[in-house]
């Protein structure tokens, strides 16, 4: 825990800190500068102050980190299968654990889970904790949080990793709040310090900025990670064990009653294909999306869009790449008229080959593209489709 304090004896009210603050958190109130509730603790005011009157004050009460050991991965089992983000979480979890000589554990909650616990062992976890009960068949935030509380109390893990799925994003804040500890959402990079502090990097403040976040005085350290961000764990000869845990009535008591389940029709998800062609605001009319679709089909892939196009109602958010949509990691992604805001870039910049087409040579998408084409998508895309089609005809 820390806070930013202004030493009023040193402060000469020069006001330099006020415009520096991106959040308008510095205010002059009479003869003092005050920091208001908009402060995000970016510390830019500390750097800006010529009088060195602003400082960060750390308080000393911290948990005993020695008592919190191990990396616990939530293995999301839902509707008969493990969510694939689980194997990616085990991948990063094992890496973190090996750096500080800890063990990796998995928690699986549900009913009739078949071979899933054994499957987890194949990815190299030291122990799988199983909570199997008919009352845990469907996800409810309250019962699953109770189970989490039980295992955290028993295991005392240093790090807890949860997938940024519909379930994970509902469950993780509930559990981290119960333990009065920190939770960092949608981490794109995770490393660990020798003192077991988890270094969490994520896009932040809604701008083109990355933030490095730590939870240095509390345990466990909760982080959520989106699907397709981390590398999948390699398979090993299983060496871990499975422990089946008791589910008591208090744990499985819920006020939430699932009345019915409606299956969505199976559609090809943009997260599961090798090639994506993305339409951004450079696509002028809804009808022009057909151009993007055609290129996607000719490359055997799917088309996707950016947030503004979903907001215009051109397509639904299952095709949206971005923090409020999906994260993708295809082998090839071609962006057409996409500017490349961080909320978009953070959710596709791990793609193997990024091609960007944009008329604006200063568009931020060119910072992350492997191949940038400065030009008009309305000229390039039709020409490219022609060439691919011509190639097919020639082959026949």
């Amino acid at each position: 825990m820390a806070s930013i304090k202004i030493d009023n004896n040193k402060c000469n009210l020069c006001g330099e800190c006020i415009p520096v603050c991106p959040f308008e958190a510095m205010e002059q109130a009479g003869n003092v500068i005050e920091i208001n509730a908009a402060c995000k603790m970016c510390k830019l005011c500390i750097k800006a102050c010529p009088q060195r009157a602003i400082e960060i004050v750390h308080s000393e009460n911290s948990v005993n980190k020695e008592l919190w050991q191990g990396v616990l991965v939530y293995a999301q089992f839902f509707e008969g299968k493990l969510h694939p983000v689980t194997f990616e979480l085990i991948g990063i979890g094992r890496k973190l654990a090996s750096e500080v000589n800890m063990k990796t554990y998995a928690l699986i909650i549900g009913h009739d889970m078949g071979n899933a616990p054994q499957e987890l062992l194949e990815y190299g976890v030291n122990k799988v904790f199983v909570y199997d009960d008919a009352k845990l068949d469907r996800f409810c935030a309250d019962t699953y949080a109770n189970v989490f509380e039980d295992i955290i109390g028993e295991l005392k893990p240093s790090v807890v990793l949860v997938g940024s799925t519909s379930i994970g994003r509902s469950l993780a804040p509930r559990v981290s709040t119960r333990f009065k500890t920190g939770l960092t959402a949608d981490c794109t990079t995770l490393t660990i310090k020798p003192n077991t502090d988890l270094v969490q990097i994520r896009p932040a403040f809604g701008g083109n900025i990355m933030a490095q976040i730590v939870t240095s005085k509390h345990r466990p350290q909760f982080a959520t990670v989106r699907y397709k961000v981390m590398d999948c764990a390699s398979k090993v000869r299983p060496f871990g064990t499975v422990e089946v845990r008791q589910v008591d009535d208090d744990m499985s008591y819920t006020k939430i009653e699932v009345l019915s389940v409606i299956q969505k029709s199976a559609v090809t998800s943009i997260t599961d294909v090798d090639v994506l062609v993305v339409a951004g605001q450079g696509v002028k009319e809804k009808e022009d999306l057909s151009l993007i679709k055609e290129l996607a089909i000719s490359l055997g892939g799917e088309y996707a869009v950016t947030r503004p196009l979903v907001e215009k109602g051109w397509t639904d958010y299952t095709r949206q790449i971005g923090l409020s949509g999906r994260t993708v990691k295809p082998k090839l992604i071609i962006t057409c008229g996409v500017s490349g805001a961080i909320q978009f870039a953070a959710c596709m910049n791990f793609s193997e080959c990024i091609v960007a087409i944009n008329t604006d040579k200063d568009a931020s998408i060119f910072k992350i593209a492997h191949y940038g084409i400065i030009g008009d998508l309305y000229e390039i895309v039709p020409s490219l489709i022609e060439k691919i089609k011509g190639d097919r005809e020639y082959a026949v």
Partner: protein
Amino acid sequence: MKIVVCIKQVPGTMLVDIDPETGVLKRSGISAKMNPYDLYALETALILGQQTGAHVTALTMGPPQAQAIIKEAYMMGADDGVLLCDTRFAGSDVLATSYALSGAISVIGGVDMIICGKQTTDGDTAQVGPAIAEHLKIPHVTWVKKIEDCSDSGIVVEQNMEDSFEVVRMPYPCLISVEKDIYTPRLPSYLNYKKTLNREITVLTLADLLDQDEDNYGLAGSPTQVERVFSPQPNDDQTIWDCASVDGAALLYDLLTAEKFV
């Protein structure tokens, strides 16, 4: 019935850049607006208010300027508004924010339902709603795309899971976070504007909350700390083709062929 809608003021633009020399954030716009996702939460509350006669309170935490979004909520039809405002709330992370908001909800008292937007456009975490529910020890359901029924004893909602929709029932008090497009948010009305011109906004400070221990709020009460902020690494290993001088489509076609995509 009493409904509280949690809303937040966010920057009007998401275009923030960092000076690579000094590491200072460059602000390119100072306008602020209501988090767009909160409009859906507010609309949900107003519709339920019309159906059940529930009293709708808009609640926000922020600097004094955040009163603007309470006024906006009034113009849409909210019955009253609360601004949680204290310099000691500065720098709150998810835990501290949700704790302060849950404290305010307790002060408001007798609340049956709390409605949140899906997420904010500046934080994009979607965590504060479930965290409020945990502080208050009440059940919550996220990603609500449809209200099926709202009776005296509880609500039935349809929630959007990855591969399915679930219809679930929950008793009051409870919290839901709603999806975009659950309803179409109404526009602020001039009639309401005139009607609510002089309507008070309740301002709560730390002194009004039950727990007045400063260490539980703001930076002091936030377990997460931002160590540093930086610009994303540009990709150094890249090729740029300018169509003013080369045939971009031909070069791209050659690339796709060489990489075996065609």
